[in-house]
């Protein structure tokens, strides 16, 4: 056992096969890289001392001093750079999440359009994919923002008013806001276990029914939802605040800024073309026998899709789909071109310019994207193993 640890290539029968050339190459590579790093960091330290900038993450406690348009959490100009980072991160996740959902739906729809019997529909889908794919995503984002939103939506004074609940104008869409009060925590403590219980009962019952055993009565589910409604009524954790149109700005209500819309629509339509081709090739890779069997069972088109085609297609679709989702997450950084306050815009842009801490900020941003990518890949991998059992 000790022999195996002491020698470089762990192969105790072929000890003489350690190649001096290989070791030499690697040492040279390490040496060159180390020298380069020393040179680069030396220059970096020189440069920042001449510009009187410090190193360290202490700047995260400094006050940021600038305002941000759309924030999912409360933020004002005296908040720290760290809060700026969190706001940017939440905005990035919000845009990516919504864009992923829409892109998948649109991509699936067009992917299926590419394979139906109707020649016209196929050609329309093919044209859509070909045209949208060859246009850069940045142009999509700019188009939807500059051309569609800024030029087509009405002014604030002439907002489109839908039932006094939804107002749409060039500054964004305003909906009623939820004003959470101090009962919110109590509500959530009781709400989450009820939801978990409901999901558990649903899946357990499904499994029991598949095995032919008797499952719990569905009245339990009804009871849980009644309990949730009762909980809501009793605790009253939030108050719905209707949007009120003031003279220049909405005095209440939650506003979705048009930048978010433009970014989400642009990313969804652009990525949906790639997802459409992925869906199409996955469906084409299903053994023809399965589809013929579905036909011979007399299933309708939608039944075939739902019970046969899509479950089988998903098995081969997950890795390229994961790639597209990661592309959406990375492309959400395009929001900086239209002023959507995601992490690149507020943190790697404004904050970097103000504080001058380039290395620290860039490292944080890169590690953040890394973390988001790895997390998404991990989730998709779990899904992949589930569908490929």
């Amino acid at each position, binding site marked *: 056992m000790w022999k195996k640890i002491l020698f470089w290539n762990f192969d105790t029968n072929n000890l003489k096969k350690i190649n001096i050339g290989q070791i030499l190459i690697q040492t040279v590579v390490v040496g060159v890289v180390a020298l380069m790093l020393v040179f680069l960091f030396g220059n970096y330290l020189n440069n920042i001392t001449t510009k009187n900038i410090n190193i360290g993450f202490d700047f995260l406690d400094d006050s940021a001093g600038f305002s941000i348009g759309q924030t999912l959490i409360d933020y004002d100009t005296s908040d720290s750079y760290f809060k700026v980072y969190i706001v940017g991160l939440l905005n990035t996740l919000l845009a990516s999440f919504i864009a992923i959902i829409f892109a998948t739906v649109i991509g699936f729809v067009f992917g299926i359009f590419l394979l139906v019997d109707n020649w016209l529909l196929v050609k329309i889908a093919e044209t859509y994919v070909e045209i949208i794919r060859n246009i850069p995503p940045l142009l999509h984002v700019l188009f939807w923002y500059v051309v569609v939103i800024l*030029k087509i939506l009405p002014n604030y004074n002439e907002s489109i008013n839908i039932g006094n609940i939804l107002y749409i104008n060039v500054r964004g869409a305003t909906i009623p806001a939820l004003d959470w009060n101090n009962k919110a925590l109590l509500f959530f403590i009781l709400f989450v276990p009820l939801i978990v219980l409901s999901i558990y009962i649903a899946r357990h019952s499904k499994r029991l029914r598949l095995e032919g055993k008797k499952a719990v009565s569905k009245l339990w589910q009804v009871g849980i939802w009644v309990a949730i409604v009762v909980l809501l009524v009793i605790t009253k954790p939030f108050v719905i605040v209707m949007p009120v149109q003031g003279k220049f700005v909405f005095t209440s209500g939650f506003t979705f800024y048009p930048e978010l819309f433009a970014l989400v629509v642009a990313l969804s339509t652009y990525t949906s073309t790639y997802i459409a081709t992925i869906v199409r090739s996955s469906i084409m890779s299903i053994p023809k026998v399965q589809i013929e069997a579905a036909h011979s069972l007399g299933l309708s088109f939608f039944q075939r899709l739902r019970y046969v085609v899509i479950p089988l297609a998903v098995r081969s679709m997950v890795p390229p789909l994961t790639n597209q989702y990661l592309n959406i997450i990375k492309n959400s950084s395009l929001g900086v071109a239209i002023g959507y306050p995601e992490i690149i815009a507020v943190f*790697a842009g404004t904050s970097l310019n103000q504080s001058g801490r380039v290395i620290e900020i860039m490292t944080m941003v890169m590690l953040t994207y890394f973390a988001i990518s790895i997390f998404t890949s991990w989730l998709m991998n779990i899904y992949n193993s589930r569908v490929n059992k």
Partner: protein
Amino acid sequence: MKIETNRTKKIVKNLFKNPLNSIITLFSLFLIIRIIIWFFDWGILNATWVGNTKQICFENSGACWIFIKDKIFFFVYGFIAKKDYWRINILFLLYLCLGLLFFVKAIKNKVVLILFYLILLPFITFVFAGGGIFGLSKISLTLWGGFMLTAVFSLMGLLYSFPIGLLLALGRRSKLPIIKAFSVGYIEFFRGIPLITILFMSSTVLPFFFPVGFEVPKILRVILGLVIFQSAYLAEVVRGGLQTVEKIQYESADSLGLAYAHKMYFVILPQALRNIVINIGDISIAFIKDTTLVYIIGLFDMLGIYVPLTSDPIWLGTETEALFFSGMLYWVLCFVVAKLFKGVDKIINKDRKGVSI
């Protein structure tokens, strides 16, 4: 002729074979006609085709194409002075010739040709478009823009990322742990972060890493960032190609006693690269589209140039036309490059027996 009519008849019959299909067909026809009419209306019938100022544009409700006519040279040459257009034209011609040289059979060793290009391409670019030597006047690099800038970024980025990506792919498959670790780390790192981060870094962070007072023009830093980014993606594609070559080829080369470099150069890479020409085409097109991101760091390529052009006081409000024209230019560019790669794939793989699915 008979077969064609049969197929068309079958397609048309299919369009109406059941009520749902008929509804879909009619609705699609309606949609198509609606879109075509709208576009025809806006872009051709009600558009302004002749004139000199925006005032004339206000008379028609459609597109203001005279804006494009006025500014078209900016879309191609950027902000370079009119008197220097001939130099950029020569540059484009030289690029074309360098590309066509690949198809010349007399040049046996194309790899040496590529290595030659690594030095030749920046040389001719900076002589003709930068100037200052050989008696040509100096053109400031900040004037570069439009199609010319897109071409420079795309060509230089693709050319330089190729050797680096190749070496990274080989390094990832290597048995030497340090080299493998470096390659994997580099590839996964640069594939995991958005290109904007790299461009931001190259425009704001990179100057900190140079010795004090050492100034590198922004264009060069951006090319460096683009090359670093693209080489990671290319490495993955080449790695896929290396995996398509059967193991027996590697073993045969080893049994012939070929050294690693010879094995790769003479046996493996010719086969691997032939298999992935289309994939390289795909990432090259994606790269050409990614060069538009330089707009965010203040460079005006074929897309970004719409901002200064539409800020011209006489032509305010023409963003729609400018973006539409840019979009069309990029569409044509990507389409042409796609066809190019398909053609190259056909030529290279002319003698191979394909597998029909």
